[in-house]
């Protein structure tokens, strides 16, 4: 009995230590986000005895984080809405209709899930330049829709295919045709899967750096990851301001997480579990 208690205590201690390891850096950055760079340089790990909330105001107004946040929100929301709708339509077609070429279309789209990004990114850059989409939010949004589309169709098709056919037959007898059943049956009945893909896509795009760095160069069109990164690597890193920017990028995700933790975990792991 004593040994049992001891080993459980040890296990719990190890887990607590690991929690410090995963959560500690957040606490540290959150702390720094409320301190000025001179304060941080003097004592990097001192708590923010006098929290400088004005730093968030300043980040917003003078450091352009307001613009970055707005760009991130606008581009991500637009991309997620479009990719969800377009992806759900395609998944509906693949799941509910038997037509020639169905398997080929599915295989072509799904196989690109594993493609490394560099196989498209140089050509995407060229296309963006050629069609005046380079350095535009529209261009980045289109790319975002395209890169999230295969996984979205894949996840939704698998779910839609499990909706019983009788539901569609009942709707057919009730008088609902091809487009209507998509709105009135597939979307509402498939809502759990759709919510999952919305979360997955949103987190991926919110955190994207690679495509943004290739397509966006103007400071006023930067998304949050780009905006934060801009401050890195300068001769005089304004650590305090970077930390504030990082919190602005992290807080929406954490808030989202606080409310929907189960669904979010489910969404993020959806692609991994067969």
């Amino acid at each position, binding site marked *: 009995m004593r040994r049992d208690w001891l080993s459980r205590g040890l296990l719990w201690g190890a887990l607590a230590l690991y929690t410090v390891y995963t959560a500690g850096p957040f606490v540290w950055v959150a702390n720094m986000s409320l301190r000025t760079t001179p304060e941080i340089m003097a004592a990097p790990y001192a708590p923010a005895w006098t929290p400088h909330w004005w730093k968030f105001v300043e980040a917003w107004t003078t450091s352009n984080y307001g613009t970055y946040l707005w760009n991130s929100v606008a581009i991500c929301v637009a991309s997620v809405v479009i990719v969800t709708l377009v992806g759900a339509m395609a998944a509906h077609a693949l799941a509910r209709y038997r037509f020639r070429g169905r398997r080929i279309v599915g295989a072509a789209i799904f196989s690109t899930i594993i493609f490394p990004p560099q196989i498209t990114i140089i050509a995407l850059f060229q296309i963006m330049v050629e069609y005046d989409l380079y350095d535009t939010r529209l261009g980045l949004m289109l790319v975002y829709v395209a890169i999230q589309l295969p996984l979205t169709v894949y996840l939704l098709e698998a779910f839609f295919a499990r909706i019983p056919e009788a539901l569609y037959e009942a709707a057919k007898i009730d*008088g609902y045709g091809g487009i209507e059943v998509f709105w009135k049956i597939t979307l509402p009945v498939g809502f759990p899967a759709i919510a999952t893909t919305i979360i997955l896509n949103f987190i991926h795009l919110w955190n994207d750096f690679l495509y943004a760095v290739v397509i966006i160069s103007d400071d006023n069109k930067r998304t949050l990851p780009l905006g934060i990164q801009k401050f890195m690597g300068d001769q005089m890193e304004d650590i305090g301001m970077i930390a504030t920017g990082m919190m602005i990028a992290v807080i929406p995700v954490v808030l989202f997480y606080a409310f929907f933790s189960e669904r979010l975990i489910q969404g993020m792991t959806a692609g991994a579990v067969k």
Partner: protein
Amino acid sequence: MATVELSRVWKRYGQVPVIHDVSLRVEDGEFMVLLGPSGCGKSTTLRMIAGLESISEGEVRIDDRLMNGVPAKARDIAMVFQSYALYPHMNVRENLGFGLRRRSVPREEIAARVAKAAASLGLEPYLDRRPHALSGGQRQRVAVGRAIVRDPKVFLFDEPLSNLDAALRVSTRAELTGLHRRLGATMVYVTHDQVEAMTMGSRICIMQDGRVAQVGTPMEVYREPANAFVAGFLGAPPMNLLSGRAEPIGGGTELRVGEAVLRLPQPLPPGSVTVGVRPETLQPSGEVGLGRLEGRITSVEQLGAETIVAFELAGAATVRARLDNTFAGAIGEAIALPVRPGCLHVFDPETGALVLRA
């Protein structure tokens, strides 16, 4: 109110026919049961009436209007599915009204019709519930209610009771019969359960391998089966089907079944036959009838109200008899039961077709 008529209907998947030349007329206000084992084509036939399957050949008419190519929604039919197919994201009220909303029925009328259907099915307390919060029996009633509110020309049922437990099935059977009486509507009902067919149907259409085996009232198909398949499919225990030989004697016939000999007044050509006798027609009595079936008892099943006795007919197969509960025989004892006149069926062993009833 409407009639449903299928004439020479075929259904093929690719080259493979699954429905062969089916013709059937359902009269106005009739409760027609399509009965048969799984895979006999009864559901496919129903789905062709509904417009959920295309018709490869032949004609389907509802109310004398040609329905081939008319989409399901324009046929003015309602269907109750085996799985009920309730819309999971709508509550009962919305489920009931969904079909009416599409047909741009005025809002107040939808409400009135939903309320009326809900009242008649006892669904009022559940109108705001989603299907997952209902019991199996309640879901089944919502599915029926969804059909009722539409007030269609024809009701189609696809094994609507098979997902219910036994007790609920009995009471729901009575409810559906009552519904049919009340509405007086034309109904086509698919089932593999002969008790449902016998108790509910105005007429029964028995199907086998994509063909119509026999159409008739429940007692007709039971008493006068048109072939050995129908004879063997109906009744529990089913009709005894024994292989025997016919030999003409004088103006009549002698049927040899194992060592038993049955004498018929009618003439039959010589050769093999299948002899059918219903278990309940075999009763102990002093008479000889058409002849006696004799053998040793191999099992006695006492069901309370009655006793099912099986005995090994000398030189032939097992025969079952349905006797009353006073029967006192035991396994191994000899038994001899007369075949009553009018209760003997003779079938062609090749085609199964009825040759003679005696």
